């Protein structure tokens, strides 16, 4: 079968709602269409911007500031500022031996989100874009890739998460929610609904009455999509004030808590990928205190997210991933801080078939080296894609160049 024809037809199906016109020819993706949307699998990425210290979180050592506490899993200890997460550790698969070579924030953020080192001339799609591409359903009014900025400040090291959808196209770009307690940008009508409808009627009439066909299909469909989103009752999904106060309290009132609650609402409504960003982990000064404050922001919402998903029967189909761009140095610097350390750091996952209550990989007593089961970034990403049922070997053709979802690596079997 002609792959281009297949592509055209499947694109037509996929674009009935997100009809942004067809892809530009040099970005034509000669790949099979989303086949697995029906799986109902979802992913929430808890992204710790700035690079959290593994020592004051999930890999405490003798030199860690503060005490370590026991968890639900025998012999596994977390930092004392994570009591709630320690309480759900039986659902968590912790990897203490992730490594990379990228020690600069933007490059490492790019790598962790894409599996590729940044390279001029093109963007590799981020995890969220691949997941949205693979798992979104064409009839949803809510965009399939959502990024929630949820506190901690954004200053840490520049960048704001992943690089977007690249050649997968704007349909899979993250829709950024700057404040989880407010609707996404530009979704409130600047005029009353009657007048908005009148404007739309005139716009449609102009298009029909244009003197010659404008050879740029798709724009009107995009206007219809955008207006159906702003007029849709499903826009209420973004409104966490709908939640009962018991839920609000369970997640906590901080921005990260609100972000996790919104993420749960979105996956419940069928959104395939939500990233919740907690920033400010770049603790070059005063690492102990600052990490402890951030753990307070993180602990209850993240733990409650796992419990809430479980109670709603969503944890089996929702993968929760916790990670940042790298870890922090075993050595404490002169300002009481820890510096960047990509050589060994911790990441955890829960849900979606992941076997909880286990730790994979081990670092040396001082945390400077991996002594068991090193996990490369692409091993990690392949594990995520396997959990979600996405073929990491799928090749996109960007112009004439083949591009794999994940170029190298092997999924970590023990996770499942």
């Amino acid at each position: 079968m002609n792959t281009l024809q297949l592509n055209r037809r499947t694109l037509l199906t996929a674009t009935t709602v997100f009809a942004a016109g067809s892809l530009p020819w040099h970005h034509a993706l000669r790949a099979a269409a989303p086949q697995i949307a029906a799986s109902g699998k979802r992913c929430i990425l808890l992204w710790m911007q700035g690079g959290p210290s593994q020592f004051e979180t999930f890999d405490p050592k003798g030199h860690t500031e503060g005490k370590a506490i026991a968890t639900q899993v025998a012999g596994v200890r977390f930092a004392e500022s994570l009591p709630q997460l320690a309480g759900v550790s039986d659902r968590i698969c912790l990897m203490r031996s992730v490594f990379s070579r990228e020690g600069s924030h933007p490059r490492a953020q790019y790598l962790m989100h894409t599996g590729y080192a940044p390279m001029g001339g093109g963007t590799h799609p981020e995890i969220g874009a691949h997941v949205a591409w693979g798992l979104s359903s064409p009839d949803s009014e809510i965009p399939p890739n959502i990024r929630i900025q949820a506190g901690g400040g954004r200053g840490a090291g520049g960048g704001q998460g992943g690089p977007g959808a690249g050649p997968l196209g704007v349909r899979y770009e993250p829709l950024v929610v700057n404040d989880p307690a407010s609707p996404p940008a530009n979704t409130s009508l600047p005029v009353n609904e009657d007048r908005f409808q009148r404007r739309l009627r005139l716009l449609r009439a102009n298009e029909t009455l244009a003197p010659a066909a404008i050879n740029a299909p798709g724009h009107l469909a995009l206007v219809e999509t955008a207006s159906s989103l702003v007029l849709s009752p499903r826009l209420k999904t973004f409104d966490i004030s709908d939640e009962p106060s018991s839920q609000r309290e369970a997640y906590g009132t901080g921005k990260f808590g609100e972000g996790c609650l919104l993420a749960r609402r979105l996956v419940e409504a069928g959104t395939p990928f939500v990233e919740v960003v907690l920033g400010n982990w770049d603790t070059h000064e005063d690492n102990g205190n600052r990490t402890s404050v951030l753990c307070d922001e993180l602990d209850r919402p993240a733990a409650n997210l796992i419990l809430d998903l479980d109670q709603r029967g969503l944890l089996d189909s929702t993968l929760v991933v916790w990670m940042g761009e790298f870890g922090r140095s075993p050595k404490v610097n002169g300002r009481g801080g820890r510096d960047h350390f990509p050589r060994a750091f911790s990441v955890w996952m829960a849900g979606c078939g992941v076997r909880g209550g286990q730790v994979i990989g081990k670092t040396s007593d001082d945390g400077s080296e991996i002594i068991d089961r090193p996990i490369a970034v692409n091993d990690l990403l392949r594990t995520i894609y396997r959990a979600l049922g996405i073929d990491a070997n799928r090749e996109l053709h960007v112009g004439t160049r083949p591009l794999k979802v994940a170029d190298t690596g092997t999924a970590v079997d023990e996770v499942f």
Partner: protein
Amino acid sequence: MKNIYVGACFAIFTMIPGLARCADTQPTATTRSVSAVATELDRLLGTATAQSADNVTLLRRMSFDLTGRPPAASDVRDLAFENGPEAIARASEQMIASSDFADSFARYWRNAILSDRSSNRVNLAAGPLEDYVRQSVENSVGWDLIVRGFMTAQGSVADDGRTAVIFAAEGKPEDVAADMSRLFLGIQIQCAQCHDHPTDVWTRQQFHQLAAYFSRVAIRPDRSGDRRDFIVSVNDSPFAPRGQNDNRYVGQPEHRMPDLEHPDRDGEVMTPTFFVSTNNVELGTMDRVRRATIAAELTSADNVWFSRAIVNRMWTHYVGGGFYDAVDGLGSKYEAQQPAALELLCNEFVASGFDIKWLASVITATRAYRQVAASASSDTNPGPSVAVVRRLSGDEMYESLSAVIGAQSFGQLIGGRAMNREPAAMAGVGMSGMGDSYAGVLPRLFFATAADLEGTTTEASVPGVLMLMNGPLVSRTLASPISLPSTTSRRYVDDARRVDAIYLKTLSRLPTPEQRDAALESIADSDTAVQGLEDVMWSLICGTEFGVRQ
């Protein structure tokens, strides 16, 4: 300023023995006139008898392509009284001679060089980069010399736009080599960084030999002044500390190709060698000579890829279809469509002294360019003989909105124009990546990647459309008293004339009678005439035609 750049280029090149010929690429008389070359191109492309677009459409098309903004309403009115190709030829000549041409060409290269970078600090280079390219084009500096400036730069990023490419590549030899090849030869040699090129003939060794020309260069932060700045620094000393965490502040005497089997070892020392000519310089050569040599080799008239890359790039940008499938899809294994036309245009471009204005004149004089544009919905490259509708770039959208109420008022509305000064908050959007400025945000809203700036796309995004429909930018534009034709002034006798004025401002044309009637009906339906006029303008700004150049 111009003399500094040009003087520096000449100073370097005339000092290197054997390269004097390359320094002598001042514009020379071409053998054939612009119209003769255009006619020959149309003959080769089979476009000589293609149906020409009408003058009003062409004026808008050329205005975006050559000046980066829509035509003034008065120019559209004037043209309405004159048919035939002479008026268009005159308009094209004026546009290419204007400073707007150099400005829009500079913005194009700002986007091509700085977009899609992982760090938003590259924005520091935006202003200086634009200044450098704009001044060079205004002063008719050839493309070869402009590129040599990029390749041989050193010093302050904030003061000297020639540093932009090396700065954007973070001064890392591999990334600098990859970008120089990709941007200026159209060849993605970096695919050979870790293994031999999967789809072309280049080897991993050849890639690292190119990187070796840039081994002595590095970027370091400059904290001496009170502003944020970086320095493209050169180290010719044999002593160079290795950086930590891949941060590299000092250049190394020689480049080493990493040992993939043993990443902890130093790797093999590479002799700087150019993969096209296979010429090399000896190990130990000073940075100044090493980079001047590769700059001269890469931009030489003998290097076919150098002229093919810029000719294909500008052709694709102006016409729509390309000789190659992508602006960086050149290489020995990729065949060009219509190779005879490509060769002709390349040869004449070289003979013109790599003159960018000449290239723009020839391309926009062809019938291939002036023909009725085809739909942008094809998913294969339609080839160089097909003109394609192009969605406006972020910069062009910016200029279009600005034109609705006049640049000065628009500047006041959003507070300044330069790339670093406009917060994304004004657009009411937060986007990922480098988008903290208008020029950064708008392309991200309307395009998937910077690569789309060089091709044709119909893609917009839901956040982009929401920004137009509901965002503060358009709302404030509509609410500004200057945007709308006055309902009290005697200049407009009735609402029909006001509707005409709105169409001219937004779409550079008058409405059809049916469109005028629809607008009048909507106005009659509104609470007030002002609201009605606002809604008419809204419906045009949010419609298809406003966002494309046909």
